[in-house]
């Protein structure tokens, strides 16, 4: 596909939403001016942008802290979740012991545990990562387990006819079939991870975007709060894109198989 046509397609795909966003921002600016709202109630987009530029160095630092907490917790959670899923799938005993427990734990809001982690681990980065691990591990575990367990019976029969061992079934059939489920769960987990890191920072921290929001809230610096909020949004979008991109690269057969 030549570049021109490609650009044309992108334009066609994203132009409407882009126009919508621009209109929304303009409307916001207009309404704030029309009712001359004070900055601490609702700052206009222009004021937020100005604050953003003014504090850009500090904001960048706090953003990097939150990104680090999010990604490190997410990765540890995803890897642990995947490994646990494989173990639970391979052993009936583990399955019967842990699966019901998991379902119960999954329904507890893990962020409510944030204060506990602050007590146990202090105000540093560690408790944030711990919460992030905790919130990201369960979606991965439950979804991947589903993908590992519910494989087409005919595939299993086929493997039996060819005398495949349990380990071969795991590596040749179960794990590849579970990967689409794994990546779907990653998309959920990455968003949870951002939330986890922020909650950790809300509860007790001296750096990170959650901390920035708390501090600027007590100073009634609403513009700075919004600047931090938009950065959080950007982190979420960036991380989700990262996951989608790696799925596209690692599982080319899946997307196309669905389209076909």
């Amino acid at each position: 596909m030549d570049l021109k046509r490609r650009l044309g397609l992108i334009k066609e795909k994203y132009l409407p939403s882009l126009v919508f966003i621009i209109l929304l921002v303009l409307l916001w600016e207009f309404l704030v001016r029309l009712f001359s709202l004070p900055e601490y109630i609702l700052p206009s987009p222009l004021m937020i942008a100005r604050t953003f530029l003014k504090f850009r160095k500090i904001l960048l630092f706090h953003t990097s802290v939150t990104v680090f907490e999010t990604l490190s917790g997410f990765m540890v959670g995803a890897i642990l979740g995947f490994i646990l899923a494989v173990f639970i799938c391979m052993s009936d005993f583990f399955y019967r012991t842990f699966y019901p427990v998991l379902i119960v734990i999954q329904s507890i809001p893990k962020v409510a545990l944030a204060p506990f982690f602050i007590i146990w681990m202090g105000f540093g980065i560690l408790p944030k990562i711990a919460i992030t691990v905790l919130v990201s591990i369960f979606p991965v575990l439950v979804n991947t387990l589903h993908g590992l367990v519910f494989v087409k019976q005919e595939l299993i029969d086929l493997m039996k006819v060819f005398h495949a061992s349990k380990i071969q079934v795991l590596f040749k059939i179960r794990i590849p079939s579970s990967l689409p489920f794994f990546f779907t769960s990653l998309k959920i987990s990455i968003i949870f991870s951002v939330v986890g890191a922020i909650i950790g920072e809300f509860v007790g921290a001296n750096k990170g975007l959650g901390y920035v929001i708390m501090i600027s809230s007590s100073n009634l610096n609403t513009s700075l709060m919004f600047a931090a909020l938009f950065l959080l949004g950007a982190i979420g979008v960036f991380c989700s894109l990262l996951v989608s991109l790696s799925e596209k690269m690692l599982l080319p057969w899946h997307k196309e198989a669905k389209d076909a």
Partner: protein
Amino acid sequence: MPEKMIEVLKIGKEFTNNFKSLEVLKDISFSVNRGSFTSIVGMSGCGKTTLLKIICGISNPYSGQILINGEAALKAGKNHYFGIVFQEPTLLPWRNVYNNIELPLELNSCPRTKFKTDDLIRLVGLKGFEDVMPHELSAGMKARVAIARALIFHPSILLMDEAFNNLDEITRGNLNLELLRIWKEIKTTVLFVTHNISEAIFLSDRIIVLTPRPGTVRKVIDVDLPRPRDKQTRRLPEFIEIVENARELLS
């Protein structure tokens, strides 16, 4: 070598769940001659698939006995006696045609040179499609891949479980002809399960008609139509007569 490749002796099977037990097969006996093409015909739910699974040793327990090449089934199961094709092609979507066909070799860590995958690909008419992924194939092509995969160990017995069920009429007809061509070339014993009466008669030397649940043998019909069979075969009065007879047995 015994002339009978498969002997099914008084096979019965019950499925039991919590409260009920369901008898799916009852007192089934028949035999399949070496190198012959035999079909099992019956309505949906009469236990055809279960019977096939019992024969190749993946559905336990059952009552009665299965002899494969004169040996008890359990012992026979250790060898590569069977190739199997299911109703769904059950290809692995992350492997191309070539690697799907070679999956059984990998599972048994067999040297690849010993089994001529390329010859097999030519045999089933997939030459040039080796690198294609399953989702890029038509349903008929997928069925061909599944057949090639089943034949990789040169099995003595090819089991086919409604293998052409999901195909359109034309593709199905073509694959019936292709299957006869392949069978003629490799001279294996074929046991073919279907609910399509005319397909069964077109392909087979002998058809085994099962009753609805619990499945029992209603009748064994020898099909004495001349070979090689082609599109004209279906128009022969003898063919039509056998189809009519079998249809009456089933209704």
